[in-house]
């Protein structure tokens, strides 16, 4: 048995990092480890667009320096993938063939890009912008690209389209208003977006979607439902996110769309918690599960999970509603998406 507790957090985003900080703040004896399959240190995801456009340098993405983890004695295991959890023996099986024991575990694995079923057959042609590694792949492709298509089903896609337009790219935007993320897009919002994009010379398809996508050399040919053909150099897909929980399947930890947790962020397995984009949180008032989105919520949940892991009994509450500006329209949202 380890001399001291070993708290492990899987995930190196805002939820995982705030959990690690809280654990270290309240327990200076325990071992605290963050394991992440991403090799790049904790970074601002929302700055990836600026990174690929060249407005931000790599160092500006980093939330904190490596020395911060050293000072707090938080062990970082980056570029390491957990392949299996064995709750009975409290063991994690890592892809590089290492077994790591934990006394308590926080799952903060975040989420990955979602592709709507109608587009899944074309997925191999898409570029994503959800992780630093995506940005690294995209950056050299974007520079020579002249024509770009965006399959836009979330807020990030709107920002990204404007950024590409400012970079003098010829942008075609397919607006997926019926499956928009993280809130439902009203007709007013959709029309405001179209209007705004038209001013920016972004060609927008609001109700017409690709029916065929094929690669042609280095380019891609898109045929729309109304028979229009266009050729682009790169296709981006933004359809919201799906919790990263594949490796949890079969462990005995209950999952649905995400990891199911109660309002204390506890899973059905003792000493295992989940928070951030990967967690599906029970709301007793609604008698239903919710998935939260957003950096700030993830941080709050990380703190809550950590405090509860240490013996407190904090209840996670949806954050206050925020007013977002969607192309001139004010949107009230709590940043919580009902499933």
């Amino acid at each position, binding site marked *: 048995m380890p001399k001291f507790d070993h708290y492990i957090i899987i995930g190196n985003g805002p939820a995982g990092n705030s959990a690690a900080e809280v654990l270290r703040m309240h327990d200076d004896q325990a071992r605290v480890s963050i394991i992440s399959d991403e*090799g*790049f*240190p904790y970074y601002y995801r929302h700055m990836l667009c600026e990174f690929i456009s060249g407005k931000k340098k790599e160092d500006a993405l980093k939330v904190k*320096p*490596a*020395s*911060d*983890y*050293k000072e707090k004695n*938080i*062990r*970082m*295991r*980056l*570029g*390491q993938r957990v392949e299996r959890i064995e709750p009975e023996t409290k063991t994690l*099986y*890592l*892809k*590089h*063939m*290492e*077994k*790591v*024991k934990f006394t308590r575990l926080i799952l903060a694995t975040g989420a990955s890009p979602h592709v709507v079923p109608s587009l899944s057959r074309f997925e191999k042609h898409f570029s994503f912008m959800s992780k630093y*590694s995506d940005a*690294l*792949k995209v950056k050299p492709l974007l520079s020579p690209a002249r024509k770009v298509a965006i399959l836009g089903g979330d807020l990030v896609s709107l920002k990204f389209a404007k950024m590409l337009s400012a970079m003098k790219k010829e942008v075609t935007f397919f607006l997926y208003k019926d499956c928009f993320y993280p809130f439902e897009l009203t007709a007013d919002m959709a029309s405001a977006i179209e209007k705004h994009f038209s001013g920016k010379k972004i060609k927008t398809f609001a109700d017409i979607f690709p029916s065929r996508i094929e690669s042609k050399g280095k380019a891609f040919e898109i045929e729309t439902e109304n028979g229009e053909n266009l050729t682009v150099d790169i296709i981006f897909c933004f359809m919201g996110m799906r919790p990263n929980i594949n490796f949890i399947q079969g462990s005995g930890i209950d999952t649905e769309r995400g990891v199911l947790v109660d309002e204390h962020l506890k899973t059905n397995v003792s000493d295992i918690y989940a928070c951030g984009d990967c967690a599906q949180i029970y709301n007793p008032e609604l008698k239903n599960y919710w998935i939260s989105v957003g950096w700030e919520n993830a941080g709050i949940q990380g703190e809550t999970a950590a405090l509860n892991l240490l013996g407190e009994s904090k209840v996670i509450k949806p954050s206050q509603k925020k007013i977002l500006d969607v192309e001139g329209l004010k949107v009230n949202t709590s940043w919580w998406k009902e499933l």
Partner: protein
Amino acid sequence: MADIDIVIEICGSAGEGTISAGEILSRHMSSLGFEIMSFDSYPSEIRGFGKCVAHSRISNQQILSPGKYTDILVVLNDSHSIPQLHAVRENGVVIYDSQPPAYHEEDKSIAGWMAPGMIAYGIPLHSLANKAAGSARGRNMVALGAMAALFGIDEEGFKTSIMKRYATKKQVVIDSNVNSFEEGYVWAKKNVQKLDHLTFSKVKLRKVTQNRIIINGNQAVAQAALDSGIKLFAGYPITPATKIMEIMGKELPKRGGIMLQTEDELSAIGNVIGAGFAGKRAMTATSGPGFTLMTEMTGLAVMAEVPAVVVNSQRGGPSTGLPTKTEQSDLSLVLAGGSGDSPRIVLAPSTVEECYESTCLAFYLAEKYQTLAVLLLDFFLSNSIRNIDEPSLPDKKMLSANISPSKTDLKDYRRFQLTESGISPRALPGTPLGMFVATGLEHNERGKPAYDSKTHLEMTEKRYRKLDGILKEVSPPTWDGPKANVDIGVISWGSTAASAHEAVLKARKVGVNAAFMSSMLLVPLNVDHFVKFSAACKTILVPELNYSGQFAAHLAQYLNRPIEKLNRITGLPMPSEDIFEKIMEIADTQKR
């Protein structure tokens, strides 16, 4: 075009091909035109599971020291490599086996020990090697392949270097190694997303010259001895000098010479003195424990005025000490070891180039001045691999330095004739009318034992007078930097001198008023130059690899002033970074 200056370490177990991989890497990078300095450390045991590290500093700029911090650590064995992580830079790269054959318990895998900021690339070394050659033995080549892919090293050229390395082996061995390299290269290209910024592909290189050779200190000494016309090498194996003996065993017979493995070190030096007496150039090579034994007889070379060249490649001491670790702690022994007042020549090269130069010089001086010449290397220098311009061969004067007696001398031959230079014409055995008595006893001009005080004083003075001539034969100490009003003067010797020089150059770049001095010739020491240098410097710093500061103490008797010391006995070469830090610390103190 960018500059590059990086340190790569490959760490594994003995028998895993760690040192071979490092050698291939160094040779290949050298062939591309990079400056390289490599240094291998390995266990004292002949074979087993001890730790091996192949350390290579590679740059397109001049490099003088091996580099303290690692930019890329290639892990062939996790448990051996975990202690190497402390030297990896914050944003350094670690390449490790991501698919070993069985699960490691927690923390037995290097992946669990990496510090925040390090970049880890997991490569399935075992499985790729198995796929390539049906055996995991080739994982060192898989690692090289992955490195080539990740850091922009040309694939085809690298394969050629591997083929050259194994050219004498069976085709199946060559194929296994090349295929393993290829697997690593392709896999890394396809599967690893590069997060670091290290690349060799955008570096401006110096033009590769045809006559550039890759050689380590021991090889340079051996080559220089062969080029200087050595006829006998007698020795008893000892780390780190054995390699010299091995080369001699292979090469000397081809040139009509003899390599004699003796029963001990005493016998070895006896044979060398015997050959020297017979007029043949001879040498032995040992380390501290062996030199200690030899001191019983080195005095004979001095007293009987017989040329003898002795290499002492220092290792950690005392006693059998640390056989495979480097140290500069035999200085006092070499300067003064042995009985009586026994003037000798001591040469301490600081680079591989100087290993060649000083060996040629040792044979020349020993022969001309008929005395003992000691070459003082260390484990690091002996094993430090550099790519150097092919050295100039010793000229006629260097190859035939004996001052033979003239016909007039032979009419009334006095082998130990008192002369102004201290050199008495030396007749070789068999020279008509050139008979004499050679003895370890004090003697008169004809070699006849004589113990009277006048003879002893005259003969001692004669033997010491040779030092004046020797001093004039050798270039004065290197003085790099301002000649007056220097804030910090750094004096060093042997392999540490190169690190010290690099540190001084770096300090000057950041505005520190520093100067550097070192001398390959330690005995006789060019005292005037050291005194002048000292007078020009506000503070004198002497870095060296021993605990007590042996060279600092030796200098103090001439400089008569306080000396700042920087001593390390880590078993590793002196990092120029440590000397630089010390210089900056002194500079700060001076400002206050």
